[in-house]
């Protein structure tokens, strides 16, 4: 088998495509033979060093590691034993990750070890020893439990107090963690399929990138005045500065991308408040990351950076795809295009090399990382953010009238990146809440007070008020309450936050439109009310409302919650709803009794309602006894519906009562008039009689 040049191999002697590699194309079998030949008794043949490196790095592009190892073992039978083991040893030492990540490869090599051992060659056995292969657990698992942070140093988790430097460091930690998990095979699959399907590691990294950009936009847009918004932008520009120093280009790109996004770039009033220094820096970074001339600015700077650095993943993915598209896999009649492998190897070697960096220049603060990670998990659509931007600074008369005025719907391009599964969210929420309590629950009683909450709330652009989180209304937020809130928020409310469930409504009191603040005119069906959050608007205003929908615990929305929440937490959220309901119903007990005396029908229904409420309370009090959450929720849903119907009917009946009362008043006044008239008439008659009598007398 170890013949000379085979005709099935094209060697490029004159001008090698890549330095150090003469082979242009060959069949995989010949590549393996070449590789075997490169190993001499004195190690790797110097002229073939480059080839061997590329071969081992890239073999997964065209064959599995298992097959390669098997091929080596096949050659081992009857040829120079030491050489085979040298190869395997070289492979193990230089690419340990292949061995740790590929179980089948391990078993093949272990078999080889067993064969050698049975032949009694101890020295050779040591060469293929796998026990020194370091563990790549962090790469295999999506989320690894982080070692408990040793330093008990307390930090502010509050965005407003957070130093840009600290923020940049923690973002870099998160970024690097996501980046280093991406495996060679992930890159390969992405290049071949151009899709993120079944590639959770790459997807997670991209989700982090997009989440960060959105967080930047939301943090800016949640501020109400231009000056406040400009301050947040300035802060993020400072963060960008530190990211540049850390040579974390990917996060830098995410931040700058967020800051220069159209939703922020159009805020002319805000931009006017930016210090010129910050404007200059932002310009500088936009220039650095610009796609002009094939990202030439970025590439130059990136290559001049040494040591720890995180590349803009997108740019390098683009290069890989470009190579993959442009160069054929097979050339010259079915030979494997090894030149392509050599060129891909240049990019992939760089990426895999950066993943193995030992000295990461940032120290993780797990509390902060957990808080950030959750902040970055929010999923808004581009649309929602743009609407918010329009609400903050509406298109003035000066701005271009040529921009489309109709509400624009944008394709969810990021659809390929799905939000993390409920378990991941639960874990993130758990970590974050623990972190918040560790740092903010000063008296360690397991509750967060009102004042402390206000500070934390700054990190979450659209968090609800204290009262909403404090489900049982005891003036304190417990861990469970906070977790429940965030899980709910993540599951549902935040995704649909801008969408209201409007329906036509008749109001019995003067009611004002939330959008134009004008009165809702008319006698009936004056306006539209949101079922979930209760805001009111004109028919023509309802589509323009930019206020988020802060669902007051609509049962429908909570259904999806059952996936991820434990029984205990469930009880709590149910309790919250009931406490809210009790509050509401306590405000109108008079109507209730009034109403019940009015009609038998209503009395009957009200009893049903009270029964339902009573039933609910019993179920909640005996939390352990209820059979299934879904059953409870169905009941809650029905009760809620019944209640809503009753409320509507109540309103109707009250209006009827009002009209009846009015009629009574009118009738009474009529009676008065008639009585007056009658009395006047009688008196007149009597007067007349008196007069007559007088005259008679």
């Amino acid at each position, binding site marked *: 088998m170890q013949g000379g040049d085979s005709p099935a191999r094209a060697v490029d002697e004159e001008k090698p495509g890549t330095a150090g590699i003469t082979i242009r194309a060959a069949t995989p079998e010949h590549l393996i033979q070449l590789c075997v030949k490169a190993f001499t008794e004195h190690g790797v043949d110097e002229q073939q060093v480059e080839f061997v490196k590329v071969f081992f790095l890239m073999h997964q592009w065209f064959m599995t590691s298992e097959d390669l190892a098997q091929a080596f073992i096949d050659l081992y039978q009857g040829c120079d034993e030491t050489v085979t083991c040298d190869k395997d040893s070289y492979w193990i030492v230089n690419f340990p990750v292949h061995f740790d990540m590929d179980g089948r490869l391990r078993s093949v090599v272990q078999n080889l070890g067993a064969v050698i051992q049975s032949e009694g060659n101890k020295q050779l056995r040591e060469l293929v020893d796998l026990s020194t292969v370091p563990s790549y657990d962090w790469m295999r698992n999506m989320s690894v439990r982080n070692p408990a942070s040793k330093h008990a140093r307390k930090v502010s988790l509050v965005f407003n107090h957070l130093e840009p430097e600290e923020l940049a460091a923690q973002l870099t930690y998160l970024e690097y963690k996501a980046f280093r998990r991406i495996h060679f095979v992930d890159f390969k699959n992405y290049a071949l399929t151009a899709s993120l399907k079944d590639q959770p590691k790459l997807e997670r990294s991209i989700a982090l990138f997009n989440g960060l950009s959105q967080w930047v936009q939301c943090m800016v847009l949640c501020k109400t005045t231009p000056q406040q918004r400009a301050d947040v932008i300035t802060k993020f520009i400072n963060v960008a500065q530190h990211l540049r120093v850390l040579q974390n280009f990917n996060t830098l790109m995410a931040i700058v991308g967020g800051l220069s996004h159209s939703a922020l770039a159009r805020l002319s009033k805000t931009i006017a408040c930016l210090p010129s220094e910050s404007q200059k820096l932002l310009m500088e970074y936009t220039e650095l990351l610009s796609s002009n001339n094939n990202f030439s600015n970025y*590439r130059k700077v990136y290559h001049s950076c040494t040591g720890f650095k995180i590349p803009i993943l997108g740019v390098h993915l683009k290069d890989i795809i470009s190579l993959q598209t442009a160069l054929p896999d097979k050339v010259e009649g079915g030979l494997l295009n090894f030149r392509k492998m050599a060129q891909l190897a240049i990019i992939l070697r760089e990426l895999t090399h950066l993943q193995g960096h030992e000295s990461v220049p940032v120290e993780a603060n797990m509390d902060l990382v957990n808080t950030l990670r959750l902040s970055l998990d929010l999923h808004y659509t581009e649309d929602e953010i743009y609407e918010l931007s329009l609400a903050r600074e509406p298109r003035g008369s000066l701005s*271009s009238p040529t921009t489309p005025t109709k509400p624009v719907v944008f*394709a969810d*391009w990021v659809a390929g990146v799905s939000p993390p599964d409920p378990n991941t969210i639960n874990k993130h929420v758990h970590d974050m809440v623990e972190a918040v309590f560790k740092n903010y629950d000063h008296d360690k009683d397991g509750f967060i007070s009102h004042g402390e909450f206000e500070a934390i709330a700054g990190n979450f652009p659209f968090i609800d008020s204290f009262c909403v989180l404090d489900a049982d209304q005891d003036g304190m937020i417990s861990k469970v309450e906070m977790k429940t809130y965030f899980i709910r928020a993540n599951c549902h409310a935040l995704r649909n936050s801008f969408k209201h469930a409007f329906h036509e409504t008749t109001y019995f009191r003067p009611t004002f439109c939330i959008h134009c603040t004008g009165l809702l005119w008319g006698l009936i069906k004056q306006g539209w009310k949101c079922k979930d959050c209760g805001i009111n608007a004109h028919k023509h205003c309802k589509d323009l409302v930019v206020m988020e929908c802060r669902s007051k615990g609509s049962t429908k929305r909570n259904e999806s919650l059952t996936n991820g929440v434990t029984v205990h937490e469930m009880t709590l959220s149910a309790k919250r709803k009931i406490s809210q309901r009790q509050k509401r119903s306590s405000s109108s007990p008079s109507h209730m009794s009034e109403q019940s005396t009015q009609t038998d029908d209503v009395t009957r229904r009200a009893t049903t309602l009270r029964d339902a409420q009573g039933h609910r309370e019993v179920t909640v009090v005996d939390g352990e006894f209820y059979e299934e959450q879904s059953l409870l929720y169905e009941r809650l849903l029905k009760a809620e519906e019944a209640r809503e119907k009753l409320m509507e009917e109540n309103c109707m009946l009250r209006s009827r009562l009002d009209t009846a009362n009015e009629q009574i008043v009118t009738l009474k006044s009529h009676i008065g008039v008639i009585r007056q008239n009658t009395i006047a008439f009688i008196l007149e008659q009597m007067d007349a009689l008196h007069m007559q009598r007088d005259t008679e007398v």
Partner: protein
Amino acid sequence: MREYKVVVLGSGGVGKSALTVKFVSGTFMEKYDPTIEDFYRKEIEVDSAPSVLEILDTAGTEQFASMRDLYIKNGQGFVIVYSITSLQTFQDIKTMRDQIQRVKGSERIPMILVGNKADLEHQREVPITEGASLAQHWGCPYLETSAKSTQNVNELFIEIVREMNSAPVKEQKGCCSIL
């Protein structure tokens, strides 16, 4: 010589890279390095005027949402690509014009709609008429191309240059008020 910045947009897997690569590198592809500065730069003659095109291929970065705005900001003309073999990719690009207009703050933007993979007629999911009517709605030219057979590849880039020539050089913000 006038320089044109063209951005190639569309979902993953529609053949953006293939079109770009076919156009910039012709047939001989032995020496190929997508990381060099003027790799995506090509000179062509359009209506007897020599022009330089700098093409930005967005392949591989489709999922990076905030990079897209930066791309659009940088570009002057836009090639919007879908695959005639995938209805999904056609749906994906339908809102693209709105997004470009939003970023550019202008209504009149040079663009061209391209249905790629025309060689795979037997797998067609998007009829020619659908593409043509979207292009008509957008008021832009429409071509079906095949990177594989090089059908219409050069024509597509010539067409986008013509579009850019007929449009105002700078996007004008708020100067054409129709009030």
